[in-house]
C-alpha cells in the first residue's frame, strides 16, 4: 500500500461517511426498495407474477452479503499475498 493509495481509500471512506453524516437519520432504505414503491405508485394494479424462491430474514441477509464481500476480499488477499511471496522467493534465489 503506497501513500497515494492510502489517500485514495481515505477519500472513498470520507465520501461514504460524508453521505451518512449529511443525510442524518434518514433511515437509508435501499434505492431498489424505493424504486419498487415508485412502481406501485405508477401502476397500482400491477401484480408481480413471481416471488423470490427464498427470502432470508434481515439479519441473515446482512450475513450473506458480508459473506459475499468476505469471499471476494479473501481471494484478492490470497492473490496479492501469493504474488508477494513468490516475488520474495525470487529475490532470495537471486541473492
Amino acid at each position, binding site marked *: 500500500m*503506497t501513500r*497515494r*493509495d492510502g489517500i*485514495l*481509500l481515505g*477519500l*472513498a471512506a470520507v*465520501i*461514504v461517511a*460524508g*453521505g*451518512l453524516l*449529511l*443525510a*442524518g437519520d*434518514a*433511515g*437509508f*432504505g*435501499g*434505492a*431498489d426498495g*424505493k*424504486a*419498487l414503491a*415508485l*412502481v406501485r405508485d*405508477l*401502476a397500482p394494479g*400491477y401484480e*408481480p*407474477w*413471481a*416471488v*423470490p*424462491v*427464498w*427470502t*432470508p430474514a434481515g439479519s441473515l*441477509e446482512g450475513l*450473506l*452479503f*458480508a459473506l*459475499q*464481500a468476505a*469471499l*471476494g*476480499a*479473501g*481471494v*484478492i488477499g490470497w*492473490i*496479492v499475498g*501469493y*504474488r*508477494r511471496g513468490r*516475488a520474495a522467493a525470487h529475490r532470495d534465489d537471486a541473492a
Partner: protein
Amino acid sequence: MHIMEGFLPATHAAGWTAAAAPFVAWGAWRINRVLRDHPETRLILGAAGAFTFVLSALKLPSVTGSSSHPTGTGLGAALFGPSVMTVVATIVLVLQALLMAHGGLTTLGANVFAMGVVGPFVAWGLYRLVTGVGAGMAPAVFLAAFCGDIATYMTTSFQLALAFPDPVSGVTGALAKFLSVFAVTQLPLAVAEGLVSVVMMNLLRRHAAGELALVPAFLKEARA
C-alpha cells in the same frame, strides 16, 4: 440495480433475457479463449471477479438518505473487455437472486443487461478512449468505473420506465422519476467505486505486473 422478482411484465422480462443471453454466451467464449491463450491471466481474472464480488455486496449509504450498491464491473471490463464481465455479473446476480432475494430469476435478464452489459461496455469504451488520448492509467480507470456504475443504474431506470410509464407524462416522465430515485443516490457511490478501482489497479500493477501485461487491454497496447 436489482429489479425485484416478478416486477417486470413477462414480455419485458423475456425481451431483456433475450437481449442479455448472447452477451453471456459471448463472454463465456471470450473467457475460454483468454485463459487458453494466456493461462497466467487467470490470477488477474480471479482478482477482477473477486473485486466485483466485494463491491456488489456492499450496500452503502448516500447523501440522499437511501443506500445502494456499487457494481465493481468497470475495472474488469477495462482489463478483459466487457463481455467477460457479463459472465461475472451474471454469477453475482444469480447468487443474489437465489440466496439474498435481491433481484430475481424472471428479472435476471434485465439486471444482467444493466450491470453486466451496459455498465461494462460503457466502462470499457471510456477506458479505451481515455488511454487512447494518452491520459494516465489512473484517470482512465476512475472514469471507466464511475461511468460504468452510473450507466448501470441509468439502464435500470430506463427498463423500469419502459415497463411502467407514467399515466400522464409517459415513459419520459417515469424515467425522470426513476432516475431521481437512483441517479443522485448513485453519484457519490460511483465516485467511491472509481477511487477504489484505481487502488485495485495499482495493487495489481505493483504485485502482478507480469500477468497484467498479458491481459487483453495491455496486449492490445503492446501490439499498437
